[in-house]
C-alpha cells in the first residue's frame, strides 16, 4: 500500500515538475526543475529504506537492530548537494536572462548564442 502511495506521489511530483518546465515562465520552470530533483530523491529513499527500523548508527548495529540502508542515504546526501549546485546555476541563468531581456517569458528569449 505504502509503495503504491509513494509511487503515486513520485509520479505526480515529476509530472508537476515537467509541466512547470514546459510553461513559458522561466522562474516557475526553475522551481519545476527543483521539484524534479525532489521527486528523484524521494524515489531513492522510497526504494532503499523500507525495512530499516533504526537509523544506521554503530550503536544500533551493535544492539542487533535492523537499520536502514546507509549506502543509499550517502548517495542521496551527495545528490542533494550536487542538485543544489546545479539548481543555483539554473537560478543564475534565469537571473541573467531576466536582466538582459527584461522578461522571464521563455518565448521572448532568442539568440542565446550571443
Amino acid at each position, binding site marked *: 500500500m505504502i509503495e503504491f502511495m509513494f509511487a503515486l506521489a513520485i509520479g505526480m511530483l515529476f509530472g508537476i515538475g515537467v509541466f512547470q518546465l514546459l510553461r513559458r515562465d522561466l522562474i516557475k520552470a526553475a522551481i519545476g526543475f527543483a521539484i524534479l530533483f525532489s521527486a528523484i530523491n524521494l524515489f531513492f529513499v522510497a526504494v532503499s529504506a523500507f525495512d530499516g527500523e533504526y537509523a544506521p548508527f554503530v550503536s544500533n548495529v551493535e544492539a542487533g537492530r535492523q537499520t536502514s540502508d546507509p549506502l543509499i542515504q550517502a548517495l542521496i546526501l551527495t545528490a542533494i548537494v550536487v542538485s543544489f549546485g546545479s539548481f543555483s546555476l539554473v537560478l543564475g541563468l534565469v*537571473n541573467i536572462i531576466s536582466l538582459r531581456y527584461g522578461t522571464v517569458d521563455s518565448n521572448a528569449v532568442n539568440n542565446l548564442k550571443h
Partner: protein
Amino acid sequence: MEFTLVTATPFLLALLLVIPPLKDLSKFAQTAISTAAMAGMFVTVLLTVPRLQDEHIIVYGIDWIPSLDIGLNFYVDGLATIFALIVTGVGALVFLYAGYYFDDAAEHNRFITWLLAFAGSMLLVVLSGNVLLTFVAWELTSVTSFMLIGFTGEKSSEARAGAFKALFVTGAGALALIIGLVILGVACGQILYPEEGIRFVADISEILQTEDLHKHEWFPIFTVLILLGGLTKSAQFPFHFWLPGAMSAPTPASAYLHSATMVKAGIFLFARLSPVMYKNALWSELLLVFGLATMLIGSIFAIKQRDLKGLLAYSTVSKLGAIVAMIGLPGQNGLKAAFLGIIAHALYKSALFLVAGTIDHATGTRMIDRLGGLHRQMPVMFLITIISALSMAGIPFLLGFVAKETLLDAMLHYSEPQTALILGVVMASSVFTAVAAYMLVYDVFWKPARQEIHFHQPPSPIRLGPVILSLGSLLLGVLVEPVIVPLLELAVPKEFELHVFAGFNDVFWLSVGILTAGIALFILRKPLIKIIGFPLSGDSVYREMIAYIDWAGENILHSQSGYVRYYLVIILGTVSAVLIASGTLTTVTAGKSLFPSDLSVTIIDLAKIFMLILAVAAGILTVAVREHVKAAIAFGVIGYAIGVIFLIEHAPDVALVQLLVETMVTVLIIIMLGRISTSTRYHVINNLWVGRHQRNFGLLRDLGISIVIGLAVFVFSLIALQNRAERSSIAAWHLENTPTVNTEDVVGAIVANFRGTDTLLEIVVFTTAALGVLTLLARGRKGSGPLAPRNADVERLHEFDVDVFEGVQDATDLSTPFTRSVSTVVLPIAILIGIAQILYGGSGPGDGFTAGVTFGLAVSLWYVVLGYHEAKRQLPWFRPALFTRLGLLIALLNALFPLLLGKGFMGHVEFDKALGLYDIVASFGLHVNSSLVFEVAIALTVMGGLGIIIEAIAFPKEVEPLGED
C-alpha cells in the same frame, strides 16, 4: 631509466616555465635553460649508443592498465635512437634560435612552452614501446603543433586556418590509425595467442615478433588504415596540402616540426612496422606509389612557390615522399637510404628554415621575387645557405650527396619491371630539387634586389643554430664512415657499406647528370614556372569538404527547435520504446501484481502518506498560484515534507541536509526574485494567465505531455518499488566496518571515508557550479563585485561610498532594527552549530555539508536583511573565494597525505593516535583523524561555494539589456 627521464623532462620543464619563478626569468635565461635541457637529453641519448650496440634493444616499462596487459613501456632500438637524436639535437639548436627570434619575452615564453610540450610528445612517439602510448603521443604532437601553427592566431586568420587544416587532416588520419592499430593488435593476438579469445596486443616488442602477420586475412584492412594515419601525418600526396598551410607557424616551429620532427612521425611509424609488414607486397606497393607521387609533385610545386617558406615546405613534402618510397622498397632494401635521408634532411632543411626565418626577421618579407643581394648584408647566412642548399641538391662530399647516392643506388638495384619508370621519377624529382636549391642560393642571396629592401641586422647569436646545422651537413658528409655508419648499423637489419665517395660508378654519373640538368632547368626557370599547374589541388578538395561539413551542420541544427517539450517527447519516446522493445518491463513485472493487495496501513505509514499528500498538494500549488513568491514558498513546503519523510525513514543525516538545503534554495529563489524587477515578472504572469483562454491549445498540450510523463514515472517507480532488492549488497560491509574509523554514524563514515573520493569530486562539482553562477552573473560588470581583481581592494572603499549607490535600492524592506539584531545574533550561533557538527560529525547526524550550509544560511540572512553592500562591509572577513580555495587545498592534501605513509589515496590516518593524544582527545568525545580534516575541508568548500553564489546573486548590478543587434 634514462629514457623515462628524457621523455619526462620536456613536459616538466614546460609546466615549470608557465609558473613563477621560471616564468619571470629573462628571455636569455629561459633560452639557456631550454637549450641546455635539450642538449643534455641529446647527450643522454648519445651515451646509450654503446649499450645499444651490445644489447640492440632496450625494453622496460611499468604497469599502466594491467587488466588489459597494457604497460607504459619504452622500446628503444636503433630506429628510436636515430629519431630521438634528431628530436633532441635539432631541438637544442631551435630553442637557441627561438631565444633570438622573438622580441617579446611573454611571447617567447608561451612559444617555448608549447615547443617543449611538442618535443616531449615527439620523443614519446619514438621511444614508446606500446602502440596505444604511441598513439596518445601521436595525438599530442597534433595538438601541440596546432597551438604552434596557430601561434599568431589572435591576429592572423591565415594562422588559424593553417592550424585548423593541419589538425583536421592529421586528426582524421589519426582516427584511421587507431582503428588500424587495434585491428593489427587483435590480429597479432590471434597469431601469438591462438588459444585465447580476443586479445589485443599493444606491446611493440610482441608485435614485431609476429612472424606471420603478413599472411593474416585482415592485412589489407589494417595496412590501409595505418597507411592513412602515416601518410596524412607525413604530408604525403594527396594529403600534402596541410604542410604549406602550416608555414604560418613561427619559423622555429616550422624548422623543427615541419621539417625535422613531426612530419617524420609517419615515416617513423612505417619504419617501425616495416619488419613485420614488408613481406606483403601490398604494403610495399602502396608506399612506393604514394611516396614517388609525392616526391615528384612536391619537387615540381616547390619551384613554383614565391614564398621562401612555401618553397621549403614543398621541397620537404618531396623529400618525405622519397623516404616513404625508400621504406616501401621490397625486401627492406631501401631502409639504409631512408635513414640516411632522414638525417641529412633534418640537418639541411632545418638550417634552411632558420635562415628563412632570419631573412624574414631582417627584411620583413619572405617573397623570393622581392629578395636579393643579401650576400653582402648576411654573409654568414649566405654561407650556411650554400652548404645546406647544396647538400639538398646533392653536391659531392656533403651529407646530402651521400644520401642521394645511396637512394639512387637502392633504386638501381630494385629489380622489377617498372624500374625504369621509378628511376625516371626519382631523376626528374631530383632535377627539380636541384633547381630549388640553386634558386635558394642565387635568387635570394646573389642576384641584385629589384628594389631597395629595408634591412636591419638580427642579433648575432641567432646564427649559431644554423651554423652548427650546416657544419653538420658538411662534416658528417666527410665523416660518414666513423659517425653515421655505426648509428645506421643499429637500425638497418642488413650488412652494408657507406662511403663519402664510392668512385666513378653508374650512380656517380647519374648524380652528375641530375646536377647538370638542374643547371639547365634553372636557367629556364622563369618560363617553366609559368607552365606548371595542376587542375585539382588537395587544398580545394579540403575546402569543398569543409563547406559540406558546415552545410550538414547547418541542416542538423534545423532539427533543434529549442522547445523543451520537443526534447522531452523525444527522450520519453526513446526510453519507452527501448524499455518496451527490450522486454525489460515484462520480465521485471512477471508474476507480481502492481497494485496493492494488502490495504492495511500502520500509524507510521499514515504519517508518511500525510507528508506525501502535503508534498503533492504543495506541488500543485506551485503551479496554481500566480505570484512567484508564493510558488517559492509552496516549493519550500514540498522540500520540508520530503525532509520529514527522510526522518521517518530513519535517515536523519539526509533529513538534516534536505531541510537545510531546502531552506537555502527557497532563500536563494527569494533573493533572486528581489533582483528581478516586478514589471519583468508581472509581464509574464499576466501574459500567461490573463490571456489564458487564447492559449488553450498550448496549455492542453503541455498538460498532456506532463501527465503522460508523470504516469510513466509512476509506473516505473511502482515497478521498482514492488520489485526492489532487500538492501544494497554492500550495505552490510559498511555497517560492519564503520567502527574501524572511530565513527558512530555509518552514513558519515561512508561520506568521509569509504567513498571519500566521491565526496572529493562532489565538492569540486559544487565549486564548479558556484563558479558557473559567478561567471554568469559577473558578465557585464565593470571591475567590481566578487570577480573583481585583488588590486581593486583599494577601490572597494569608493565602492562602499553610499552616494555612489544612491539610486540603487540595495537594502530591502526587511531591514528593520529587529531583523538586523536577529541576523547579528544568528551568525555566531550558526558558526557554533557548524563547528559542533564538524567536530561531532562522527557521532551523530550532521557533518561538513550541514555545517557549511548552516553557515551559508546565516550569511545569506545578512545579505537578505542588510543588502549586498552593507553585508559586505559588516563581514569583511567573509571571503568565499578564499574559503573555497582553502577547502579544496586541504581536501586534496588530506587525500594525498596518506600516500606518504603508504596507505593509499584517501587512506585513514589517526593523527591523535600518532601524536599520543588519543585518550585526552577521546575524553572530549573527539577523534582527530583524516575524516575530521576532510569534514573541515568540506565545510570550508561548501561555505565558500554558497558564499560565492549568494554574493553573485545578491550583487546589485546593472547589466546592459540586449541591444537591437
